[in-house]
């Protein structure tokens, strides 16, 4: 695209010497942000002597899977095996992500395309709730969960995470882009609201679904709070919690550090893979993320 206009070079097609200054700033940032991530990978595969080598080495020299083997064979002090925590985490994560997607898309469709009295108010409340910080109300949540009898159950992991204001917000903004005429013509053909939601809305908002899937995945997979506060039964706690107990023992036990490193890698990798797969959909959604 050869144009005489040289002001903005936003989203350039190819490399140009004028971009060097940006690379010079971005490169050190890359190193600062990326090194700890590289380190998680490197550390998890170190044999014991390298973990405690002095001077410490950043990169692994003789990689081994020993830390992972130890981790999988490990049970905590109460005899709950590591695989149990992992199993709990997977169940809880799958249920939370699936329910969050269903609830947010359904509510977003109603808030975007249906006409009813409280619509503007509900969206307004949700926008204020974007600022909500769950840990600020940990105590009331504990009392509430205790009172409705959910302590020591899977539901205590699941229910508090389902309403995700930022998720509803993003999907609603995305559905706003779908022309009303599309929905009207489907209605002319006799489609019910449920059919419209299922056959028209859901397929068109796939990028937004990918985005809330990622956000809710990160929220639930990394969540330690529900295990610490709402669940006393060791066998119902999650992998993130197990990880946090390993982390707090790191200083004391020699073998613990290798396992903690392996566990942090296991915590991190699913996040990374899911984001890499869905990143273009996420960027597509973010284009509509503005608060007006």
């Amino acid at each position: 695209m050869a144009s005489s206009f040289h002001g903005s070079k936003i989203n350039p097609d190819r490399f140009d010497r004028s971009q060097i200054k940006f690379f010079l700033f971005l490169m050190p940032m890359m190193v600062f942000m990326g090194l700890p991530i590289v380190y998680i990978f490197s550390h998890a595969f170190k044999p014991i002597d390298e973990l405690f080598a002095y001077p410490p080495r950043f990169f692994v020299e003789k990689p081994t899977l020993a830390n992972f083997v130890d981790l999988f064979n490990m049970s905590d002090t109460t005899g709950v095996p590591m695989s149990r925590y992992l199993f709990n985490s997977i169940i809880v994560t799958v249920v939370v992500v699936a329910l969050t997607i269903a609830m947010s898309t359904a509510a977003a469709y109603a808030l975007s395309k249906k006409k009813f009295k409280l619509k503007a108010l509900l969206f307004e409340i949700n926008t204020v709730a974007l600022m909500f910080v769950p840990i600020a109300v940990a105590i009331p949540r504990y009392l509430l969960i205790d009172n409705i009898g959910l302590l020591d159950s899977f539901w205590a992991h699941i229910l508090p995470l389902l309403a995700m204001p930022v998720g509803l917000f993003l999907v609603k903004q995305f559905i706003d882009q779908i022309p009303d005429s599309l929905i009207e013509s489907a209605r002319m053909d006799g489609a019910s609201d449920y059919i419209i939601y299922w056959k028209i809305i859901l397929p068109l908002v796939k990028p937004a679904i990918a985005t809330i899937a990622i956000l809710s995945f990160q929220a639930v997979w990394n969540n330690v709070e529900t295990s610490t506060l709402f669940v006393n039964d060791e066998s119902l706690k999650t992998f993130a919690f197990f990880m946090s107990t390993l982390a707090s023992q790191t200083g004391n036990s020699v073998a613990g550090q290798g396992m903690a490193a392996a566990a942090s890698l296991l915590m991190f990798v699913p996040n990374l893979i899911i984001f890499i797969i869905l990143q273009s959909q996420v960027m597509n959604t973010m284009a509509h993320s503005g608060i007006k």
Partner: protein
Amino acid sequence: MTFFKKHHSTLVFLMPYVLMFSLFIIIPVAIAIGLSFSYFNAIEPPSFNGLENYVNVLTQDSVFMRNVLPNTLIFALIVGPGGYILSFILAWMLAQIPRLPRIIFALVLYSPSMTAGIAMAVVWRIIFSGDQTGYLNALLINLGVIYEPLQFLQSPNYLMTIMIVVTLWGSMGVGFLAMLSGVLNINTEIYEAGYIDGIKNRFQEIIYITIPSMRPQMLFGAVMAIVTTFQAGAIGVQLSGANPTPQYAGQLMVNHIEDYGFIRYEMGYAAAISVLLLLFIYLFSKLAWRLFGDND
């Protein structure tokens, strides 16, 4: 019944979300406000004590006034605006380079925000470890800057700085992605028009075109930055491994709430601090709204 018939599907669509939203967001906030006006030790039922908790926060709790409040303000004022401005600068620069390196860089910048505290506590503790096998200590000793390893995470002198660095490191999250796509989606014709109207350099371009054109994303990013900042409250406890943190050096409001609520079981008092925290967050967000929202 006609109302139900007419809005039948709307109700079905909204009900699950509204129910969960009320149960785990609205009601807990309401309970926190209620408890903040009462004495409650989690064993006896709560008893109303008026403004006593709030009066105590302001007059009796020297740790709160001397450590927790200043810590929280310093932390929030550096991490919030700092992370936000950094997100914008990085997003803007990424928009100036070709697509492939941009995607790779964006991925690297975003990935720390996915690690969400706990996974990283392990790594940071090793890097800042207090003996000579800690990476930073080994590096500084090698360079001859220090002779004895420093207790980074246990020392009141360093803990806060490390908390700020670690939180900034993980702050390129959803808000950063929103701003990146905001910069990328500005119509180039607006720039052309701007240059015809007399814009001379890239800095003027950012102030007069880029930021005004992506105000909605700027506001979304600001709200996300505020939330991330206050959400990160647990970091000091994770790094130092103790609540309270050494000499309260890294004690933030979130830790103070936990300290009183779940360690001392003074839940009414803890609730009053929760309410103050929510008010803080609300005020910060109002400010962001004032800056970037529609002026109406």
